[in-house]
């Protein structure tokens, strides 16, 4: 954790030295606002991965939830119904993922990858290539508004981080997730109800994708079927850069927050410095690999000393 923070600070210092516009309060808030969207979509996913699962459907789920929320608001005019529709869609998809993984015993990769395509299919059919747009200012404030100078999605991120931290550190369920992720058989033998815990994890991941979908809708002021497609890989990357292992049993939400900020900083920095668009994918790739490399070296170091 410590080393990842140092890595993040190094990137920050390098950017501050190379661009005057970087280390200003308004740009740092801007980065936090952008990172909060990645964090929200990656938060439930983090816990699933800690439990040695995987949820590839978060982006598609986010997209479908956003579209349902948009349709609900457009047809009823009630903002609360939009929120309910988005959360319900996300949660139901999460439950289905959990059932596929536990009751049908499908590998999480296959189950949620299949779910991803089914959600795209439903969304394409539902939206028919159209865009739903133009929402009231009170709703848009959820994504693009400020409260006491701090962007609203940043508050949501903080609540998620705090709730998640308490949940993983101080509740039995939280401890059980790590036990399941570290060794599922051992967890089962020690009496942890593995199936029901896993279903709850996937449900949580789905619900967070639904919430992120609503926030995303408020920020973009529009929904189209492809809205969630570009979000899956950054969400997974944020989790992994944050030090949560794909094999399960370690990591957590604080790491994912750092991962989300690193990813956001890369684009922010390239934009501020005006790096040629053609080089941007390469730079992004190199920085992600460097982040992973620093992590693995420092971890080995720590293991040797221990």
């Amino acid at each position, binding site marked *: 954790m410590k080393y990842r923070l140092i890595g993040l600070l190094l990137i920050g210092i390098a950017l501050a030295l190379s661009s005057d516009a970087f280390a200003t309060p308004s740009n740092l808030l801007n980065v936090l606002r952008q990172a909060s969207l990645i964090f929200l979509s990656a938060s439930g996913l983090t816990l699933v991965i800690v439990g040695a699962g995987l949820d590839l459907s978060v982006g598609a789920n986010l997209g479908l939830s956003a579209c349902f929320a948009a349709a609900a608001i457009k047809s009823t005019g009630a903002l609360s119904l939009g929120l309910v529709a988005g959360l319900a869609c996300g949660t139901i998809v999460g439950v289905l993922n959990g059932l596929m993984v536990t009751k049908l015993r499908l590998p999480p990769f296959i189950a949620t990858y299949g779910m991803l395509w089914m959600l795209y299919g439903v969304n394409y*059919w539902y939206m028919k290539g159209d865009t739903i747009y133009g929402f009231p200012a009170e709703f848009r404030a959820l994504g693009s508004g400020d409260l006491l100078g701090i962007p609203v999605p940043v508050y949501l991120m903080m609540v998620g981080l705090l709730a998640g931290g308490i949940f993983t550190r101080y509740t039995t369920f939280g401890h059980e997730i790590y036990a399941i992720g570290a060794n599922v058989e051992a967890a089962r033998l020690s009496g942890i109800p593995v199936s029901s815990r896993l279903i709850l994890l996937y449900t949580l991941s789905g619900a967070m994708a639904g919430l992120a979908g609503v926030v995303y809708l408020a920020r*973009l002021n529009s929904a189209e079927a492809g809205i969630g497609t*570009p979000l899956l890989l950054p969400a997974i990357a944020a989790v992994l850069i944050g030090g949560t292992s794909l094999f399960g049993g370690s990591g957590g939400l604080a790491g994912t927050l750092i991962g989300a900020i690193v990813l956001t900083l890369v684009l922010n920095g390239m934009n501020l410095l005006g790096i040629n*668009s053609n080089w941007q994918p390469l730079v992004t790739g190199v920085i992600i690999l460097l982040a992973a490399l620093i992590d693995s070296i420092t971890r080995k170091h720590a293991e040797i000393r221990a």
Partner: protein
Amino acid sequence: MTSHEGKQFPLRGLVLILAVIVLVACGEVKDGSGNKRETIALFTKNQVNPYFQTLRVAAQAAANELNVDLVNYIPTENDSIREQMSQIEDAITKRPSAAVFIPVDSKAMIPGVEKFNAAGIPVVNLTDRADGGEFVSFMGCDDYAVAADTARYLFKKMNGKGNVIIIEGQGGSSNNQKRMGGFKKALEEFPDIKLLASQTGNFQRSVALQVTENLLQAHSQIDGILAANDSMALGVIEALDAANRKALVIGLNGTKEAIDAVKAGKLLATGDCDGFLQGCMGTMGAVRHLRNLPVPKEIIFPITVFDSTNYQGADVPYEQRMCPKWESIVKE
């Protein structure tokens, strides 16, 4: 995984796969084979870009007027080369009378076009030019000219001076290259317009929004923003609104949402090669060829820059729009 679980997986997996097939089949467009009506196979690039949706509605309108069947082939994965290739193979086995074809990639789809040629199915190449194969006709618009015209319009509105930024489309796409070329050409004609930054938004609204937020941090005075498509232009507008900043914004494609933004005074203009007209003309051209009527080898559609003075023509739901008469567009 234990052997017990291993045994269960194939059966249950199969049930899931069957369920998926049923789901997909429900969404499939009706198959036009089995009667003597002419069938036109229409290939578009994806399900998500409103531009292609407009084009498909128009093609259907033309097909209804001409009394032919239209079958849509749309990749489920956006702009997927692999998927469009296999859709071509599927289409050929069903033997449509003709194909109206928008390649997802100008070069990579040449072998696909050659498959049509080998099967003796006539092809009208629409919107994006394929770099090889035999065609009845190419019909499209000059992306370079649309971008240049729309940029010139913006620069004139800025009285020929000020700071601008460009939000580029997907790197490596030929569409984007042509549009960037048009923007750059117009910039050369206005020496007092200063380009502060040119960054990619990947043709996506969410990316354009984020990139604009970042660029607003770096540049305190931005007078104009050129976006390589309408979705991105609308993302730009969200970023400006949230930051309480003002700039003149242009987009390209003339989508319904962009026209609404022009009407609301948020978007300065959107340059268009009318997707509706393209859908009409592509289908009509293919049917004319089947009925032995002349079709020019190339049709380049006229350009419109929609602004607050002329958006009304595009401000009609496409379901209510009618295809124009062939002769009103093609004059021989």
